[in-house]
């Protein structure tokens, strides 16, 4: 391996755990909900990974393994009628709004019981009934769309808030800058959440970005506060989410949050992630969102047995959802021709 290979760079280690976050004013019930959600996102992610290895998931897929605390924390802070938009790495964001595990798994398996009956696939999960307005495959494209959902809420006076998740790679796209400017000018009730996992696909984000924090350092350019949080500490994410969502709901305008996190796996199914220093991967494994939270809850007096019961319960749910997804039929071939237009079909001529 050449000297200048990315894997030989000095490791970028996680931020030190902020032990004081244990003292944040979060109800025990909320914390247990957060733990349950983290378990769900991790176990579904692990299951999807296994289904790839069994070659049951065709096409590509982008997992959020290691990054679950961001969507879990924000999901818990959102109101049921708030809107979410995510990038193509959107499984966790969809589940964290309450989408069914079976619907998500079946969509990746290309089954008729998938959330979109197999027409969207891994990169395009949508669950409108749960406020999930979509996962978007073109990097950065959904930030301007999130503005539109927020504008609509503003016009309708509904006080709904839109939360838009994207990766560090999205911050060097023109749409990111167009969206932030318009959101600030129109004072839209939108929260932009950058999940900075340090790598833009296979390239370290710091090598291709002019500023230290790809999202937060740009915030002052749009008159916004520079917010950087530990994206692996779900208490810190949840508390920040509550603050910026409340701010948006109160009509005080948009926020841009940069949550520092790390992928435990590769960018996508095909990626073995050999471009990362081993010491870096190990350091982040020691800063794992679920393990951190497990330890914190124990330190706060929650019984190990209670946490084990949550994990076991989720495991049973994931098994059941997998079985149900696998049992679903393939979509009928007529589905190719439906829902191009609002009449339900694809006819473009008479």
């Amino acid at each position: 391996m050449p000297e200048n290979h990315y894997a030989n760079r000095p490791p970028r280690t996680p931020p030190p755990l902020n032990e004081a976050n244990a003292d944040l004013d979060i109800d025990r019930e909320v914390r247990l909900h957060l733990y349950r959600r983290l378990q769900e996102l991790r176990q579904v992610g692990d299951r999807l990974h296994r289904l790839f290895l069994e070659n049951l998931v065709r096409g590509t897929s982008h997992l959020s393994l290691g990054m679950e605390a961001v969507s879990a924390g924000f999901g818990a802070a959102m109101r049921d009628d708030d809107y979410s938009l995510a990038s193509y790495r959107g499984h966790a964001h969809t589940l964290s709004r309450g989408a069914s595990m079976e619907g998500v798994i079946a969509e990746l398996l290309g089954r008729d019981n998938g959330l979109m009956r197999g027409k969207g696939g891994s990169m395009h999960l949508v669950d409108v009934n749960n406020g999930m307005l979509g996962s978007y495959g073109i990097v950065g494209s959904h930030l301007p769309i999130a503005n539109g959902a927020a504008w609509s809420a503003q016009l309708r006076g509904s006080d709904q808030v839109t939360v838009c998740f994207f990766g560090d790679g999205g911050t060097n796209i023109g749409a990111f800058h167009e969206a932030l400017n318009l959101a600030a000018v129109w004072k839209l009730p939108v929260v932009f959440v950058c999940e900075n996992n340090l790598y833009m696909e296979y390239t370290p984000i710091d090598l291709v970005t002019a500023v230290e924090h790809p999202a937060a350092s740009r915030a002052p350019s749009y008159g916004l506060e520079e917010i950087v949080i530990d994206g692996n500490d779900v208490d810190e994410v949840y508390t920040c989410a509550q603050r910026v969502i409340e701010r948006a709901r109160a009509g005080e305008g948009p926020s841009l949050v940069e949550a520092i996190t790390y992928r435990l796996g590769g960018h996508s199914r095909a990626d073995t992630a050999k471009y990362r220093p081993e010491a870096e991967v190990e350091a982040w494994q020691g800063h794992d969102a679920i393990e951190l939270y497990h330890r914190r809850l124990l330190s706060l007096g929650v019984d190990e047995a209670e946490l084990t019961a949550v994990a076991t319960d989720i495991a049973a749910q994931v098994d059941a959802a997998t079985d149900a997804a696998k049992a679903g039929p393939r979509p009928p071939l007529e589905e190719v021709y439906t829902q191009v237009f609002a009449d339900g079909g694809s006819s473009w001529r008479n």
Partner: protein
Amino acid sequence: MAELTYRSAVAHGIAQEMRRDPSLVMLGQDVGPAGGVFKTTLGLWDEFGRDRVRDTPISEQAILGAAMGAAMTGVPVVAEIMFSDFLPVCFDMLSNEIAKTRYMSNGQLAVPLVVRCANGSGVRFGAQHSQSLENWCMMVPGLKVVAPSTPIDMVGLMAAAIRDPDPVVLFEHKSLMATKGDVPDGEVLDTLGTARTVRPGTDVTIAALALMVPRALEAAEILAQEGISAEVIDVRSLVPLDMASILESVRRTSRLVTVEENPRLCGWGAEVASIVAHEGFWDLDGPVLRITTPHVPLPAADVLEDEAVPSVDRIVDTIRTSWG
């Protein structure tokens, strides 16, 4: 009944719909107090106010993104992209997001919006402000495409586009802005996907769109004096495409000529010609002729632009020569 210019018919149609549906909003660059660079939105800001008529920065992706997000959460939108030439700047939003979201979400999301833009040649603006891009949009599954040629069609098709539950791209031709026509009082509502026979004839069918319609009509008048009876069809809508009207006309005339302002390759007439060659083959007495702008970027100088874009003379000559 009032005589309106094509230009004022744009605002007339939008205003009719904004009065009918209080949730309808519009946005774009300079659409507010300025009334648009082509003055097509004049008066809307005064009547409907800043909340419903929004000026935006020059941010085409932000404009169409905002339109899409609002449309899919219950607020219908008319978005202006000033020149169709700027659609490529936001073609991701149009072709990947707006067009495909209904399909990818299996109908969970709908995107009822209209994207309007000034299109076409005649103002000598050169290759980046004079293009005819209707065929680009026609090629994207999920988009509807209309291009009115008269004030009354502008009002009626604008209303139809706004009420349509699918995304519609509406092309306003720059060289037709000053043309005039009668528009009835009261609500005017047309139907997407319907062509119109604007001159009956028996010898040849000329299918034309937007600025090419008045040129085809003028050509038909000249040909009539030479004993050739041309039927002129204003195609009006590329998606949905009213092939039934064209095929019915060809059954009677046995000849078809398309007049297209788009560059040659993959112009809308190529699709029409291929359908007629398949489904109307036994009705034809001669080859289908396509009159188009050649496959070049549009030049700026008046004589060069006039040479490139189909003219009345070129239409007449092409048809006359084919009569042999």
